[in-house]
């Protein structure tokens, strides 16, 4: 069942087309990673899912309900953490969290206490004294303490230190175990790589690639370093090989993943003494999509 469903959604702001006909589906229990360069349209997509922006064209549904029309019903079952958290300077972090859970109608005191201590956040301080990271923690505590079906995170760890990032990731694992649906927009690739079942790349308002990490790996190239006893000949004539550099008997090149077997067979003729293969990282992929 699709918990999140966007069909041909277009959104423009004046002359800027922030989203250009995007479609995406998230199944129940999946962690969906959403990556893309600055200004690609990630936040806009999320705001449409939250029903605080109205799509110009297309439909957006969460839990099978229209995000704009049934916003309130949907919001009873979702939790959201924005990328840039701004709070009321004269309230304490605890007051804000409590207010949010009051609006939500479910409040879990123990869970909150646990989250405060795990995230190392002092809820009795006024929000004006919080650093960026601490404000983010307030939003995270509020979201994670609430009982929801869908968790939407827009760059949730952008202000957190690596330790806190890890705490966050543990909570996401836990949610995943509980079969919750998670939508995670992020610039931190290792995070997406670790957590997500499905990844989409958005660029200039269009989704350019969607799939599991493995699907992506299939599409990408490995970096091969090989040393042979004999000089390799005619490597450049082989399909799927790029960027060859030869220094003496040491050769490095990029290799399309799906040609892996063929090429290994080919070079083994030259008596391999050393072979290294670096798996493609999401980063390589990312870079390929980011560079115009």
């Amino acid at each position: 069942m699709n918990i999140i469903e966007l069909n041909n959604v277009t959104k423009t702001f004046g002359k800027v087309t922030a989203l250009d006909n995007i479609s995406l589906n998230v199944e129940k229990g999946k962690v969906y990673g959403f990556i893309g360069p600055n200004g690609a349209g990630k936040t806009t997509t999320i705001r449409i899912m939250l029903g605080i922006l109205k799509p110009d064209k297309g439909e957006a549904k969460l839990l099978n309900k229209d995000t704009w029309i049934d916003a309130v019903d949907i919001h009873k079952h979702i939790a959201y953490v924005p990328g840039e958290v701004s709070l009321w300077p004269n309230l304490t972090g605890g007051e804000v969290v409590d207010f949010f859970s009051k609006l939500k109608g479910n409040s879990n005191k123990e869970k909150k206490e646990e989250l405060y201590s795990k995230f190392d956040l002092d809820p009795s301080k006024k929000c004006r004294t919080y650093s960026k990271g601490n404000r983010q923690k307030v939003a995270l505590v509020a979201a994670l303490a609430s009982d929801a079906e869908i968790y939407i995170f827009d760059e949730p760890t952008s202000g957190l230190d690596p330790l806190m990032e890890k705490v966050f990731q543990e909570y996401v694992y836990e949610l995943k175990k509980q079969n919750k649906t998670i939508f995670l927009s992020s610039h931190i690739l290792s995070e997406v790589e670790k957590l997500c079942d499905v990844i989409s790349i958005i660029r200039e308002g269009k989704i350019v690639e969607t799939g599991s990490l493995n699907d992506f790996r299939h599409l990408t190239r490995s970096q091969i370093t090989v040393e042979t006893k004999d000089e390799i000949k005619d490597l450049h004539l082989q399909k799927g090989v790029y960027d060859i550099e030869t220094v003496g008997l040491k050769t490095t090149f990029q290799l399309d993943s799906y040609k892996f077997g063929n090429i290994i067979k080919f070079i083994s003729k030259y008596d391999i003494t050393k072979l290294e293969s670096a798996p493609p990282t999401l980063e390589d992929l990312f870079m390929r999509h980011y560079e115009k």
Partner: protein
Amino acid sequence: MRKQYFYNVWKMTKFIFKRDKIRLLIWVLTLVLFDMMVLPSMNTMYPDQAARDSFRLVLENPAMIAMFGKGYGLENYTFGAFYAHMMYLWLGLFNGVMAIMIVPKYLRGDEEEGRYEMIRSLPVGRNSNLLASMIVIIITFTSFIIFKFLSLIVLGIETIDFAGTLNYSIGLGLIGILFAMIVAAISQMYQSNRTVMGVSFFVFLGLYIMFSIGILSSKVLLWLSPFQWLLHSQPFVNNIYWPLMIIILVSIVLAILALYLSSKRDLDAGLFKQKTKAHKTKEYIKRPFGFALRLNKTMIIGWLVACLILGASYGSIFGDLESFLAGNEMLANILPPDSEYPAAVIFMGVIVMVMGISSTIPAVLVMNKVATEEKKGRMEIIFSHPVSKKEIACSYFKIALITGILAMFVSALGLYLASSTVMDDNIAFSIMLKAIMVYIPSLILLLGLSLLLTGLIPTKIWIVWLYIGLGFFVVYIGQILGLSETITKLTPFGYAPQIPVDEMNWITQIIITFVGLVLGYLGLIKYQKRNSL
């Protein structure tokens, strides 16, 4: 509108009260106590019929009519009638200002700061915050009505009777609510808190000017202004309620309009889109002076236009003034008998005072930016460049000063252009210019004060506004209330001579300028030394 749009509205209402109860309480108490203080002192100052009657004559001058309205119950000028004549409109204006100061923060402030986004991701209706803000305002002004009513009844002054006090309190409360609804509608149209406030004040001023011009020359214009609806309830005289019903009806219409617009719009959006500008940094922006100028350009131009219009609006009254004076011998008598100046020139003195003070507003807005921008955290990135705090403060000071002087110039220009077309025997531009430029030392003093606060207590920069407000009040209607000289002398405006009727007091003005510069200098030193916010 669907019920869902209002989900959790009570929780939102409570939340607003929780955050803001102190501020609301202070506003209400200030407005209530104000009356409580003024009323007894007026009662002792104008104790008998004779005193009031003589004062009535002063109020019959068209300049005064433009400011205060015509008054009701003039034949039987009881203390109640007199008090309403003096205070009703002005307190109505204050309540309007209060609404404009309070409401935008709830409606646009939170949204602009990004606080509202998280709330909207929770089960909260699209209109809940708007309706909650309306409820808060209505509760606030209702408690204002109750407090005001009780406080005046308690004073036990004879003609400040039960029925009149009730009408008076309700009228004032309602005009506050009306302006809150005007702001509510405007805030659905514009994206930033500042613009909403600016546009609201613009509308407010426009409605008041409409009243001022209308009462002298056009019934239609007059009755289009809510201030006439307010005045026409005639508290302590006839206690009529139907004009107040108009206020209620219009408020309801505006509330519905605001709710409708809010249910249709995106978060962070308005009816009027903010323009996206070409992305080429002009050379001048690269120094603090140019940068500050760029930041304030739109605001400054807006205010200059406003000053021009204000001047022109006042100028357009001059035509009626002449005919009015020609037909009214009695009035001519109460003008200073030995005066060598025509009445129009004397009238101009009063008008120029208003324009002089309003010209300081854009200048102070610019100067206060040093503190307000810092408060918003936008100065940090500037300080991180090789730019001294001194350079920044001085740039702002220069821009503020030029803005103020320009504002005075265009006000005089507007006054001249409009008055010269409607008068047979018009006043020379140079006279008007001289009359208004007298306010430059006061301007410098205010800028100095602003800089001092920026150095000492930047979070309390609004004290400057309080001071200007006080100055405005003291000078403008304080004279009529017969406030003593010493109080007028607390503000620089009290020292400004009315040129050409008064002599120019060079020494005093030089001292004021000097004090302003010293304050500014002290502020600058403190500003350079203190930590960033």
